């Protein structure tokens, strides 16, 4: 369960939002909405512990995330605007190395299976720079499937995806929620997922 009370964010001279409360429980997801520049990404960065909030506190299972540190990060996965995908490496290498850095090495057959599920069969050994924008996003999304995290924080996960990939990602999130997971995401599209809450900034 993730709760936050009285969050505010200041960027330079401007106050983006203030007094923001939110709560996400097991099986629930939060749809963060707002205009461009409203502070959606800033909120997600604060919730993921990348940046400290100007005011307010965030609790994970009742304990402040600042104190939990690594215990919180083990259960949380943040995917931002940037891919964190290395252009020089193949999708297969990207997936294996990212898992190793997280201290949870991945089985090679599992990695190949996941890539196939995301429609990257036959592209495993091609450097990522030869892939299209949508395919790069798919490599990134493959991480969602292999990293065992309870809380997903996704910034615009549907960008550059085709219809089929959008369905695939929706199914993946639904599966995650059904298993007691939680998700917080920003998107300009409406999403047909159960147990959703909307937060307008």
């Amino acid at each position, binding site marked *: 369960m993730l709760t936050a009370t009285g969050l505010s964010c200041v960027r330079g001279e401007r106050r983006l939002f203030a007094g923001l409360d939110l709560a996400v429980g097991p099986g629930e997801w939060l749809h963060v909405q707002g205009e461009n520049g409203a502070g959606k990404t800033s909120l997600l960065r604060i919730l993921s512990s990348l940046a400290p909030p100007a005011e307010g506190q965030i609790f994970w299972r009742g304990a402040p995330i600042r104190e939990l540190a690594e215990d919180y990060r083990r259960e949380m996965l943040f995917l931002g605007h*940037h891919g*964190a995908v290395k252009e020089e*490496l193949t999708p297969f290498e990207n997936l294996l190395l990212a898992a190793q850095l997280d201290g949870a090495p991945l089985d090679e057959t599992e990695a190949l299976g996941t890539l196939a599920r995301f429609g990257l069969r036959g592209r495993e050994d091609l450097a990522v720079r030869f892939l299209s924008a949508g395919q790069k996003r798919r490599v990134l999304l493959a991480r969602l499937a292999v990293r065992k995290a309870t809380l997903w924080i996704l910034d615009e996960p549907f960008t550059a995806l085709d219809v089929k990939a959008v369905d695939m990602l929706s199914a993946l999130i639904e599966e995650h929620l059904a298993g007691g997971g939680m998700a917080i995401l920003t998107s300009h599209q409406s999403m047909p997922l159960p147990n959703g809450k909307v937060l307008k900034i």
Partner: protein
Amino acid sequence: MNAILAVIRRDLLLAMRRKSEVLTALFFFVIVVSLFPLGIGPEAALLKKIAPGILWVAALLATMLGLARLFAPDHADGTLEQMVLSPTPLGLLITGKIAAHWITTGLPLVLLAPVLGIQFDLDAEALGILVVALLLGTPLLSLIGAIGAALTLGVRGGGVLLSLLVLPLYVPALIFGAGAVEAHISGLGAGGHLSLLAALLALAVFFAPWATTAALRIALE
């Protein structure tokens, strides 16, 4: 420990795919060092006297060349964010990155230095001391450089700032590193200089990853 090895493997793999970056620094080192004997002329005694200084200054500058690229690509594609958010402590991952930087830029310099030293009429023993001094000194350059690279991450015109920040900090390594070979040539023995260099390295191994990590956290906030 596994995480450190994983980062080293990853960075070495990336360096293999981007060979030009590693080779540029290496060729720079070879060419700068080779220009001096050509420019000064074949005066054995003079060349022998200036050899340690030239080899060390060239090593400093060659290390500087790739320093700005230590964290910049990972910063640009979001990998650094993922490292900060990884369950693995950031300090370990950064230690791995610095180690990989030394393997790709420092170690080749150490291996090439004795070959280049021959141009300066250094004898076998002096070449041995040069290699030991560089072996202790080049990791120090990578460690100190990483702090500078982290502090200037995302700053416009960071390259110039980085040199201004880091080169003064390289002075002790330069003095003791070049001093070791000079002391040996003049018959004083290199032990003292090498011990001081090793002490600096021990201090930096302990302190630099911590400072780098702190600087990176600030850069990403």
